[in-house]
């Protein structure tokens, strides 16, 4: 029986607890939050043995094998380091750390300690993402992706999070080097990072505050971002983050040397884009028919998954957790490579640096960063 603990008892901790409890041969031995009431409410709603407001007590008394860190991002590094030093495997929610340097320190520590570490890029493990990966592995794209487009929409009208951020000048997200972007974009970037081969691709970023935010006198939070990523004059990618774009999509497009793929994460739809053309008018009639057929097949796949009780909203998270636990138990490869985690962090560092050079509010946020890093390392 794998003993699991959760540190940080906010909204995402509910999703973790729900999915962990669906996995066999594991139990939640303890939860921890610096606010004891938050830890207590989580314990009361789920079959959890103990709750704590002190991380060291959780580690000493519950003795977990794995710790899930679901706290605000600025504390990820320090908590993960403490857990690794206590001999626990660690699942860190996204964003993994505040920067690539912190990510590197944690990965080195995990490797030295023969412990496992993963990042909460759970969107890469939904059913549709796994179908896409299987096709790519079979060579459907040809010689890997030539170009990728990752779209990540974000609805600022969502009351649960955006209003809390916009209504609170002291919200923790405002203290992140990349603010709102840092807390949200890693899912969208991780989709691209999976198919990049170099460790430090070129990143060109352009960010701005949307007219909507400007209209409510919010000038500190960039909510529009366009990024171009290039590596070795071979593979390129566009990443779009937008709060204004409608529909607010979450989509990945992959174009290979033979064919292409569209992964629609909102509707769990995977579409194949045929690389070759039909002759004459056949190219006007056969492709629409092919798309209609593909949409029907996607519908069938989704219905089948639902009927087989395997279509939960957080199915990607469950799959990632299961893979991570299997990797721990059977010493198998990790579901997300350390190279990929570092690559996402590196790309985020690069684009936040560029934004800092052009936006004074980001420069101010980054000034705070060395203190946070120092605090994490020295304690």
């Amino acid at each position, binding site marked *: 029986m794998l003993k699991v603990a959760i540190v940080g008892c*906010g909204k995402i901790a509910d999703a973790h607890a729900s999915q962990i409890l669906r996995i066999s041969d594991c139990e939640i031995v303890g939860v921890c939050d610096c606010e004891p*009431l*938050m830890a207590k*409410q989580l314990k009361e709603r789920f079959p959890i043995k103990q709750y704590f407001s002190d991380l060291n007590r959780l580690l000493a008394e519950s003795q977990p094998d794995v710790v899930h860190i679901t706290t605000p991002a600025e504390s990820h590094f320090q908590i993960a380091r403490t857990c690794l030093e206590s001999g626990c495997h660690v699942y860190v929610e996204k964003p993994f750390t505040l920067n690539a340097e912190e990510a590197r320190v944690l990965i080195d520590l995990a490797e030295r300690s023969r412990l496992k570490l993963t990042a909460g890029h759970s969107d890469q493990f939904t059913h549709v993402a796994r179908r896409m990966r299987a096709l790519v592995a079979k060579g459907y794209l040809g010689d890997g992706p030539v170009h990728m487009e990752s779209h990540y929409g974000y609805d600022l009208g969502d*009351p*649960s999070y955006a209003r809390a951020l916009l209504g*609170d000048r002291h919200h923790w997200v405002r203290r992140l080097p990349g603010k709102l972007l840092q807390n949200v974009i890693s899912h969208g970037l991780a989709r691209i990072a999976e198919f990049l081969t170099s460790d430090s691709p070129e990143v060109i970023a352009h960010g701005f505050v949307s007219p909507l935010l400007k209209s409510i006198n919010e000038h500190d939070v960039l909510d529009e971002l366009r990024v171009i990523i290039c590596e070795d004059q071979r593979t390129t990618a566009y990443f779009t983050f937008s709060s204004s774009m409608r529909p607010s999509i979450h989509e990945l497009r992959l174009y290979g040397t033979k064919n292409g793929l569209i992964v629609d994460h909102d509707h769990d739809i995977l579409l194949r884009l045929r690389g070759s053309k039909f002759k004459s008018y056949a190219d006007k009639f056969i492709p629409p028919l092919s798309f209609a057929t593909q949409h029907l097949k996607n519908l069938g796949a989704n219905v089948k998954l639902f009927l087989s009780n395997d279509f939960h909203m957080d199915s990607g998270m469950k799959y990632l957790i299961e893979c991570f636990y299997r990797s721990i138990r059977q010493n198998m490869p990790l579901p997300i490579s350390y190279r990929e985690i570092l690559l996402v962090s590196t790309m985020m560092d690069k684009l936040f640096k560029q934004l800092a050079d052009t936006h004074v509010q980001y420069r101010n946020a980054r000034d705070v960063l060395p203190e946070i890093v120092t605090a994490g390392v020295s304690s």
Partner: protein
Amino acid sequence: MPADSQHNLIIGPDDRILVTGATGFIGSRVVENLLTRGFRNILCFARPSGKNERVLSASAAKSLATRFELLEGNLLSRQDCENACSNVSVIFHLAASMTAKSFPDAFMNSVVTTRNLLDACVRDAHLLRFVLVSSLSVYSNRQKSRLLDESCPVDEHAELRGEAYCFAKIKQEQIVTEYGKRFGLRYVILRPGTVYGAGQDGITGRIGIRTFGPFLHLGGSNTIPFTHVDNCAEAVVLAGLVEGIDFEVFNVMDDNLPSSRQFLRQYKQNVSSFRSIYIPRILSRLLCYLWETYSHWSEGQLPPAFNGGQWCANWRKTRYSNERLKTRLGWRPRVSTSDGLQRYFDSCKQRVGHA
């Protein structure tokens, strides 16, 4: 001078009063009510918002020689709570999370905030009463009798109802009563029904839902426990002022309440006509049971959005009593239900017209 014809009051006109959530729907009316009664030392606490000054200045303008302050802050900050509670005699605590869908968000913005406020209260010796505005939704409504009054039990497993707001309200009440026992904090809890009034629109879930497209009318002949916002504010203010009611709980709803069917008919006549499908109680009960069973079996593939607890709380045939409110507080509705509903419909119609 503050005056109440039937009861002695625990504070005078210059004693300091704190109203949290002061710019909210009920909070702004509570402030107005206090000003009308001649209270002159009111501290309004609200989250930072461009609208706060505008909402409260309208009330302040009505009163001359009033020490009327707006303190913008966050009850999650202990320092903000201490600043707010200093030298306060009565606290009207209305701030709560109304929109949070997740349990942790609702809990943090209702319970943790209340605990912070209570900690600040017990550190300051001036407080005479803490008024918590809770909700009628805290009752399980599974009692044998159809009458729901203050003696009925609160839902012990609110987490199973799938309503984060209700869960947070029950926990909020628990923490207030705990501070009453541990620190002798003098509190009064109010549980308003469905608060309505001009400036709001929509139809309460006790009448029906639009979750699946067409409007499903679930209330049928059930009485809807409406309370007009001005009547609710009156009850809140009296709960903070009247002597000899410490540690008591009061349900708040108006007289001559309409049935769900009557309300829906009037809404369609006065605001906008739309198609609704009536779901008989036995069918809605069955559907809730099936949904809950499937949700449990599927390990949450469908969230437990509809379930037996929710059905009892919202759609079970129930009678309500405001007798205690009248006898102990001397409360009388300022706005009759017929007038209140007409004003509400007029306001809704204007909003529909502007939309």
